[in-house]
């Protein structure tokens, strides 16, 4: 058993590893992360996870529900630390797994992966409490600066890979398994519901916007760009009809008015503390909202952006979906704007008191051509003829959400209840 495997075993038991090992781990992780671009390419199948916030036992539950590393390919969209009582164990475990299985786990940065935020919301205090010094916090913050800002999932299948799962409610078991767009499973792996594609995912938890898609502007034009989705050369990757779910952009917060193409994310200098404003800040702080265009974010950082912005960005970058975290959703996930953007939240009963469930999102690989991410080869817009006439919007990939509750908590390591304020009138 290597030192790394020993460290993983120890962290899985929720026991911190010695400071010297943390230093070594962080050093190795940085060497690995420095090689990654600002936008990491990830091939489907992949399981996408939202905020964790130091809820270690719930992270273990997530691995139980979603499968273990390296069997399952994971993408975590940031906010590993703060608020929960085990930020340290949670983040170090994820980092160990990253170093051990670099191709099976992707970590991108959330707004809490920052020196300023962690000093206030718990991670700094936790490091101090568990190690008696701020060294470990410093090592971790140095790693934060190297985390990628986004990920681009390629080759996600239009159809969900079939699974052999029973229905939670047996009376539904005759639901057609063909052409399922969204499948919802509970933590026991039972199917809760299925939504076929022709209904367009009009489920309760989806918040579908009525915003008409903006006028198509490129349909009759000869595409000027020609390449893989998410690159400046993009036109469409729809290549082979009926196969691809299109590319999926994963980012912690959302879009930025300074970023109109994924290439612009690639050009940022990310190796720094999260700034208070600008593109990098927006990517980690913004939220989608039911507005037209851009709005001021009530958070005091980042922006709000409406359906028109998402639609425009997705077309321009040949994306079928934006996947993000950052906002607590009581149902664990929430699709918005005709399923062009989804929020995934993976911290159940957030902060041990919010009463929400958590979710992870599985994207299958494209079964039709063995997971090969299709690149355009000059055969433009072929898919447009096949799909609906009125929309040239790319159909989303098949999406399987697994919803889970909080794991039973043990109280070890929980700090004593904070003394109440002396005076507050």
């Amino acid at each position, binding site marked *: 058993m290597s030192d790394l495997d020993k460290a993983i075993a120890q962290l899985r038991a929720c026991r911190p590893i010695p400071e010297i090992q943390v230093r070594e781990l962080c050093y190795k992780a940085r060497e690995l992360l420095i090689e990654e671009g600002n936008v990491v390419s990830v091939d489907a199948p992949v399981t996408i996870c939202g*905020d964790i916030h130091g809820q270690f036992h719930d992270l273990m539950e997530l691995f139980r529900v979603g499968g273990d590393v390296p069997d399952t390919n994971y993408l975590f969209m940031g906010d590993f630390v703060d608020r929960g009582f085990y930020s340290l164990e949670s983040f170090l475990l994820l980092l160990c797994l990253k170093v051990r299985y670099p191709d099976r786990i992707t970590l991108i940065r959330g707004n809490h992966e920052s020196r300023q935020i962690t000093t206030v*919301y718990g991670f700094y205090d936790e490091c101090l409490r568990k190690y008696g010094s701020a060294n470990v916090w410093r090592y971790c913050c140095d790693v934060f600066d190297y985390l990628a800002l986004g990920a681009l999932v390629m080759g996600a299948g239009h159809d969900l890979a079939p699974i052999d799962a029973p229905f939670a409610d047996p009376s539904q078991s005759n639901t057609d398994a063909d052409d399922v767009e969204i499948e919802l499973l509970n933590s026991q792996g039972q199917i809760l519901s299925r939504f076929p594609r022709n209904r367009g995912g009009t489920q309760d938890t989806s918040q579908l916007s009525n915003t008409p898609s903006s*006028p198509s502007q490129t349909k009759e034009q000869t595409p000027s760009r020609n390449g893989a989705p998410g690159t400046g050369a993009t036109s469409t990757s729809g290549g082979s009809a009926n196969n691809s779910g299109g590319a999926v952009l994963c980012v912690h917060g959302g879009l930025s008015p300074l970023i109109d193409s994924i290439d612009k994310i690639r050009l940022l200098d990310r190796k720094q503390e999260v700034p208070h404003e600008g593109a990098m800040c927006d990517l980690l702080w913004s939220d989608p909202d039911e507005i037209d*265009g851009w709005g*001021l*974010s*009530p958070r*005091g950082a980042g922006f709000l952006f409406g359906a028109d912005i998402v639609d425009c960005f997705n077309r*321009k970058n040949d994306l079928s979906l934006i996947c993000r975290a950052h906002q607590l959703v009581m149902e664990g996930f929430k699709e918005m704007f005709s399923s062009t953007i989804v929020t995934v939240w993976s911290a159940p009963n957030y902060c041990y008191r919010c009463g929400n469930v958590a979710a992870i999102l599985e994207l299958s690989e494209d079964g039709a051509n063995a997971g090969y991410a299709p690149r355009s080869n000059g055969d433009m817009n072929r898919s447009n003829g096949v799909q609906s006439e009125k929309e040239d919007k790319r159909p989303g990939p098949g999406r399987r959400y697994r919803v889970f509750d909080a794991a039973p908590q043990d109280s070890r390591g929980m700090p004593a209840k904070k003394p109440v304020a002396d005076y507050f*009138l």
Partner: protein
Amino acid sequence: MSDLFRQSVNTPQPQNQNLRPKPTPIPTQGRSSSEYDDYSSSSDSSASSAASVATVRPSSREHEAPPTHWTNYFEQELFLERTEGEQVGRYHVYLTPPTDLKKGPLFICHHGAGASGMSFAMFAQEIRKKLPEAGILSLEARAHGSTIANATSGESIIDFSLEALVSDAVSMIQLTASNQSWSTIPPTVLIGHSLGGAIMTTLATTHFRIFGPSLIGYCVIDVVEGSALEALSHMKTYLSSRPSIFSSVEDAVTWHVRSRTIRDQRSAEASVPSLLISSPTGNGKLIWKTDLMSTSPWWDQWFQGMSQKFLTGRGAKLLILAGTDRLDKELMIGQMQGKFQLTVIPEAGHFVQEDVPEKTAGLLSEFFRRNDRSQMVLPPKVGDLIKQGKKV
């Protein structure tokens, strides 16, 4: 009623500039109790027929006020009066008007229970360094500088319900506007500390119409419904454990600083004198101006439903907390859904605006700048770009 008040309301306005009361010197060493009469809140109904509004401005001909006098933090001190039925409200506020009424901003501040308008003195000084054009209106609640009395009997009315305190705040804002002949209230940010937070949150939720279109947002300082209600049971113990009598102002300032109730010497020197009155026993000692225990029947009511109101009020929302984040469930959900701005200041105690006035002023000036609608430029909407014939 205070001498200062009586003197000012009995003085016909505005002819007798030179008869205006002197700035009250803040006693610094072993003063006799008589000099604290200005802080007395005894009532005197005979003044009710006098001019309802009086302004006290410092006069250069008077001897120089000590560095902690209110004139060092605010331009004006207003005594405002409103009679409603059997109730006479005599209000006391501090004001520095904004230089440009159209642009503002006007920060309207409300202190917490047991504090006073001078709780925002250092904040007022600091905010003017960052936003020289800004105005500050610091209100004083009943029994904290303002008095509410029965019109016939002249006795103080004991009602500390949230509704009563909110209606006092509305009156103070409206009377100040008419005193200053403002046709509309300048672009405004409300700031409430503690109990003041509950009052300002209620203003922004149910009384936002008095501001017309001028309400930019509101800021609550160090109070959260959940943790406040939880801590209520400890409050009586806390109150009984603090000294009830001080031998001098210095003594009181020292106690506030030593007990870390107020963690900034300058702030304590500015605000503590206004918390005290001379002891009625006439022994030269000082006691608290506000009898907090008498407000205890309303404590629960002050904070109940505050989180809900905070999340649904009009305008931008900023919550500043001292020490650690003590959000209750409702605010935790709201915060993680991005509904308001939260700033935690680890180095500050409960009196955030007094402990770290410069930082508080920095946060509030940023908050205003960010939410100032006259300056706001958002990126164009996609629809507008298409209309302009631009390729998107």
